[in-house]
């Protein structure tokens, strides 16, 4: 019951945060530009056309009325029409979302599966050559420009060595559309050739995207394990003569990882921000590439639609992480 109340409390914060995000995007799209309608109409429109469009879009009404209308439209899932594709922006984004989720989830898996063991190893062999090498890696991970790393990987693995495809998600037809995630669709239809090809296409973008998140995870895990190793209970277990691997991989790790779970929300932020540029580099047909193409075409509605979506996804994930953390950590429940 207490748990439910806590989850509800977190959920209550969700609404004002989302509304706040909408205020921000509304201000960016309607208040900052000198004339938002002229921006939408394009450079070739005549003044009369601009005025007609202004009335048609309802931009001649007072700002608060416009804002309520804006929120009401968004609640109905209406983000307007892309100026370039002439299709509803919601459809464009929904169509591309699975590609982004697939890339982000694979990158997240890579960074968790590689980053956490490396962090533990780094803490256990503190000040060893390996630890120093990993420290260089983590420092680099947070300083490297994702788009540049992607281009360098393409240069080496696709152009020079020819091991991986240069860009895109699949060369031919996608597998039968069941979930929109090519890996899952290919596995479900037992199409292992496509599965392998999809995996090959994923390798470089996922590695590019995972690198900064991985660096962050190594750093947090190392610090967490070192802290717990010096705690009283770990000392007690050592004094009781428990085998070191048991202490480390069972008790210490479980305790150290509780704080790492909290960082997953942060990691997701790194991944989502990175996805925009990573997708652009690898021509990955997700919402990031859509946003970048919209920027290049000055498709202003679509850029705003992307901002709302990306912000909303991020807020939802953080909410879920918060709730999950409450479930995992008994101390959170008590307070």
């Amino acid at each position, binding site marked *: 019951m207490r748990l439910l109340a806590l989850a509800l409390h977190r959920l209550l914060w969700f609404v*004002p*945060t989302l509304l*706040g*995000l909408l*205020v*921000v*995007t509304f201000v*960016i*799209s309607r208040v*900052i*530009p000198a004339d938002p309608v002229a*921006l939408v109409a394009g450079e070739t429109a005549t003044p009369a056309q601009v005025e007609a469009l202004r009335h048609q879009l309802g931009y001649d009404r007072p700002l608060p009325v416009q804002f309520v209308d804006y929120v009401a439209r968004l609640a109905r899932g209406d983000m307007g029409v892309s100026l370039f594709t002439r299709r509803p922006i919601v459809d464009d984004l929904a169509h591309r979302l699975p590609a982004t989720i697939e890339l982000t989830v694979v990158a997240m898996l890579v960074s968790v599966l590689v980053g956490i063991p490396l962090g533990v190893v780094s803490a256990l062999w*503190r*000040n060893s050559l390996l630890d120093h090498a990993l*420290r260089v890696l983590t*420092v*680099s991970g*947070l*300083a*490297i*420009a*994702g*788009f*540049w*790393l992607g*281009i*360098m990987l*393409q*240069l080496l693995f696709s*152009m*020079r060595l020819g091991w991986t495809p240069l860009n895109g998600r699949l060369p031919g037809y996608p597998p039968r559309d069941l979930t929109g995630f090519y890996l899952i669709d290919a596995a479900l239809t037992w199409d292992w050739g496509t599965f392998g090809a999809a995996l090959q296409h994923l390798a470089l973008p996922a590695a590019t995207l995972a690198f900064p998140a991985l660096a962050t995870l190594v*750093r947090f895990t*190392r*610090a967490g394990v*070192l*802290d717990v190793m010096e705690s009283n209970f770990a000392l007690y277990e050592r004094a009781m003569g428990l085998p070191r691997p048991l202490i480390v991989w069972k008790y210490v790790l479980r305790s150290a990882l509780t704080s790492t779970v909290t960082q997953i929300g942060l990691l997701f*932020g*790194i991944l*989502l*921000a990175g996805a*925009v*540029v990573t997708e*652009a580099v690898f021509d990955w047909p997700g919402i990031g590439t859509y*946003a*970048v193409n919209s*920027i*290049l075409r*000055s498709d*202003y509605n679509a*850029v*705003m639609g*992307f*901002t709302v979506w*990306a*912000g909303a996804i*991020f*807020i939802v994930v*953080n909410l879920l992480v918060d709730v999950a953390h409450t479930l995992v950590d008994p101390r959170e429940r008590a307070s």
Partner: protein
Amino acid sequence: MIQNVSAAWFVVTRLARDRSALIGLVLIALLVLAAVLAPVLATHPDDVFELHPSERLKEPSGAHWLGTDRMGADVYSRLLFGARITILIGVIAVGASLALGVPIGLVAGYHHGWASDLLMRVSDIFLAVPQVVLAIAIAQTLGPSLPNVILALSVTYWPWFARVVYAETRALQKEVFVESTTALGASPWRLTVLHVLPNIASPIIVRASIGMGFTILTAAALGFLGLGPPPPTPEWGRTIAEAREFLPDAWPPPTPEWGRTIAESREFLPDAWWYAAAPGVAIFLTVMGFNLLGDGLRDVLDPRLRRSAARDG
């Protein structure tokens, strides 16, 4: 004054003893040197504006240390001038974020009430969206230009300062010296500016150093996406007429912003690898310098925040 100087000297000597902080300091010093002395250090200082079609995409050599780009300009010389843009963006954006975030954090931290809550909620909303996403939206709305990039980065970065200052100010209110200063009749203004602010300077400085790295990285991404500073208006008539024949699309020469240079280099890969590699390494070293310095400053200035990872060195 003398106290300040000796305090600063203490920080510098402590930083110099921390190996990674020292590397950070050296990298930043090199960056500043490159930016200030760009016209002197550049081997081809005129290449930021001039075209040499015959020198196009030459490999690194004695004449062109880092090769030449698609317009025959010396990559090394253009990198040096690009450092000026990078420093300009970083310093102004972080400065503006400080100017906005610190007062907001102080006010919200000092006063208790709905207005403070509202201020912090607003900053939470900005923190709830990845910075690059909001910066893209703002830069796109305003149009690509140097001031707009700086504006977009400042608008999206100030909440980090507001949050740090808010938390520190709230924590300080429990301290005895704040209570006694208030009891002595100090005005809120005097208390926050003369007593609270100096005591929370350390976390602000640390955040500013890390913010420089982060802002420069985001600025490079904006430049790469075509939202950075646009090409300057050309006024070199003679060169244009010459160049149009050879390179119809390449004029006017773009600003030597690093992220943008990487975007331009892509169509010449894999042959002209130096063209793409050099600016990326420059971004990497710059951001690493500020990150290492930030970590080092945290250890020296703020023992409470001492990263566990650094306990060894």
